């Protein structure tokens, strides 16, 4: 039996009637035609399907669309303001942070949130003392890699992805 779901994606609200089995990933791509979010593994192992819900980065392939009632989803299509790229998009271009581009939307959304998490000072698995507050000026490459470890890249653009994240960390003022 279908489920009525009101879903806000970027700046548009959609009234959907969905099969409960429909994942958010398939809802975005097939129902709404927003194909920027990619299906890599479809089992929560690669991060290509990363979107932002309620300000948090999550995997859309393991999220049921029906469970997103009333939530705000941001996809890669929602980052730019008209023709003006988001600083993270600009950084990925400037640092050449991709080859085939398939993982790239997930990388960019994940990186946007990773920067916010650094500004919030929260620790990661490689932070020596979880009591300490990290900051963007002193964050190591090891920290960036750990915080981005949920996004795989088979083209191995990792060094340039790290550079793009660092560019935004150093240039973007704290929100």
């Amino acid at each position: 039996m279908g489920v009525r779901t009101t879903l806000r994606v970027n700046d548009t609200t959609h009234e959907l009637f969905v099969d409960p089995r429909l994942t958010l990933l398939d809802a975005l791509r097939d129902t709404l035609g927003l194909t920027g979010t990619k299906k890599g593994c479809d089992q929560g192992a690669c991060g290509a399907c990363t979107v932002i819900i309620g300000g948090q980065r999550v995997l859309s392939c393991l999220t049921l669309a029906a469970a997103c009632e009333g939530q705000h989803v941001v996809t890669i299509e929602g980052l730019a303001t008209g023709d003006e790229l988001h600083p993270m998009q600009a950084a990925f271009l400037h640092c050449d942070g991709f080859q085939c581009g398939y993982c790239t939307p997930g990388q960019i959304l994940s990186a946007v949130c990773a920067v916010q998490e650094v500004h919030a000072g929260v620790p990661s698995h490689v932070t020596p003392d979880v009591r300490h507050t990290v900051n963007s000026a002193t964050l190591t490459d090891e920290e960036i890699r750990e915080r981005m470890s949920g996004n795989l890249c088979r083209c191995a653009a990792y060094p340039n992805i790290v550079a793009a994240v660092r560019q935004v960390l150093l240039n973007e003022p704290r929100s």
Partner: protein
Amino acid sequence: MKEFTFERFARAADAAGAVAARPGAMFLAGGTTLVDLMKIDVLTPDTVVDVRPLGLSGIDVWDHAISVGAAVTNSQLAWHPVVRDRYPVLAEAILAGATTQIRNMATVAGNILQRTRCSYFRDVHASCNRRQPGSGCDAIDGFNRGHAVLGVSEHCIATHPSDMCVGLAVLDAVVHTVRADGSARSIPFGEFHHVPGDTPHVEFALEYGELITHLVIPNLPAARRSHYLKVRDRASYEFALASAAVVLDLDGDTIRAARLGLGGIATKPWRATEAEQSLTGRKASDATFRDAAEIALAGAVAREHNHFKIELAKRAIVRAFANAREAKV
């Protein structure tokens, strides 16, 4: 994926009642276990009840304990300043697991209820006593490099994969639940998970339809000197080959008391109580820690591909305690 009915309720007792009244119903929280296993037909509920609207998502801080709502996400718990300050082992354990995306989705109760990653459990064409009682265990004579050496039986050697649970085990958390009739009860963490024994399909001390509402983690001043150490093939985004959660209460270089939890090597989140007790009053040296590690792994039973875990776990125990000893608290 098999078709199912999707439901949500406003009150926890109503959600519990809905599941209890419907055979083949399951609760949905973050979806990182349930949706994953439904996609490969390991779990096939007829009804899925979404628990996130129930509002079980607060963290209350008191002097004597903290209370953590069942739907608090792994990230929220790990990043909470009181958790980082009072229970660093728990923050470290959570942060060692999965990825930020998964930790943002996965709830505390869901982490406690996660299922094994055994590839035979996850393959409906394989024999698995946990998934289908009496069907056999393909892991015992199969590819068992990641499987358990503690708490195993002739029927199941599946590893409990959680990092967070090893932290909760050493902190003596208490799981609080509500049942369909509205009654509440509490289950000490050490009693929540079952070893497989003769009934690998019985994993948890929950009644059908019983819903976890919150955890209570008692205050433990000694936990300021605590640490989680995880050993795995990759640097990130992988389950443990072996892990150790330690709490070390020191008086100079003498151990007043210690706690030891083990992950990646056991069929449930493991508490090595005999090893802990052996440390009381001893000098906090690596040799002492090694003696405790020998006790902790004394009952280990290895299979063809996982014998290395026994020595690996012993070294992880020594390193974890040594790190805790050196910590500046």
